[in-house]
């Protein structure tokens, strides 16, 4: 399949206050490409939740963003502590957030379930002590 667009973003862990640059840029690009606004919102929310997770929990990550004629793919590979119990992390309300994260309005235990909810295909691989790989696919049609 021909790739219409592809971009790689580096995300640094730690600074919650200014986080969200990659996902807001992804949203702007999708708008410029004329993608349906309902799809854009799903992609933007999934990307933003994934970006916030990196900023809050990991050291750094690469976010690969691809637009093909049929779907939008976001792959996030981070270096960080990983998740010991993925099924627990997928439950709404389960969170290991710090008070600082909660002060910024995050850490309600909604992130991963919300990424899944906005995706047509969602895969998560975690290696404790190494990091997490997320594969998010959202169909355009």
């Amino acid at each position, binding site marked *: 399949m021909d790739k219409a667009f592809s971009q790689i973003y580096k995300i640094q862990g730690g600074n919650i206050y200014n986080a969200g640059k990659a*996902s807001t840029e992804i*949203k702007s690009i999708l708008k410029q490409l004329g993608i349906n606004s309902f799809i854009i*919102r799903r992609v933007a929310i999934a990307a933003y939740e994934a970006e916030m997770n990196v900023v809050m929990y990991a050291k750094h990550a690469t976010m690969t963003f691809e637009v093909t004629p049929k779907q939008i793919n976001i792959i996030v590979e981070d270096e960080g502590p990983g998740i010991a119990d993925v099924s627990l992390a997928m439950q709404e309300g389960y969170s290991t957030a710090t008070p600082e994260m909660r002060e*910024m309005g995050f850490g309600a235990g909604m992130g991963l379930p*919300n990424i899944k*909810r906005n995706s047509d295909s969602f895969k998560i691989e975690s290696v404790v002590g190494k990091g997490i790989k997320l594969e998010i696919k959202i169909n355009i049609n």
Partner: protein
Amino acid sequence: MTLSEIVESLSCEVFTGNDQLHMRVEFGCASDLMSDVLAFSQAGALLLTGLVNNQTVQTAYIAEIKAIVFVRGKKPSREVISLAQDKKIPLLGTPYSMYEACGLLYKKGLVPTMVCVPFKA
């Protein structure tokens, strides 16, 4: 209802978006948790919140929130206002509490939007 009507109903200060007060919003949502805004809000909503930081504006942009009302007399920093200007999201501020502000707007016909249906992973 228009943002002008909201400004009047809630005695709002307009931090940015004076040129957008003709904008219409049909439904609203309220939360201090941006996680919940991302999970439960709908595109086009007005957001009432007590959380005054960059992530409030980023979340609004991502979730297609039309305008933000800060409750309890909270004031955004210059940096937050500038981010909102960049994203063209009007920022209003009311002295009312979240509960009162929601009640006043609800009474005027601004309907709720959050759909809090439990989701199974």
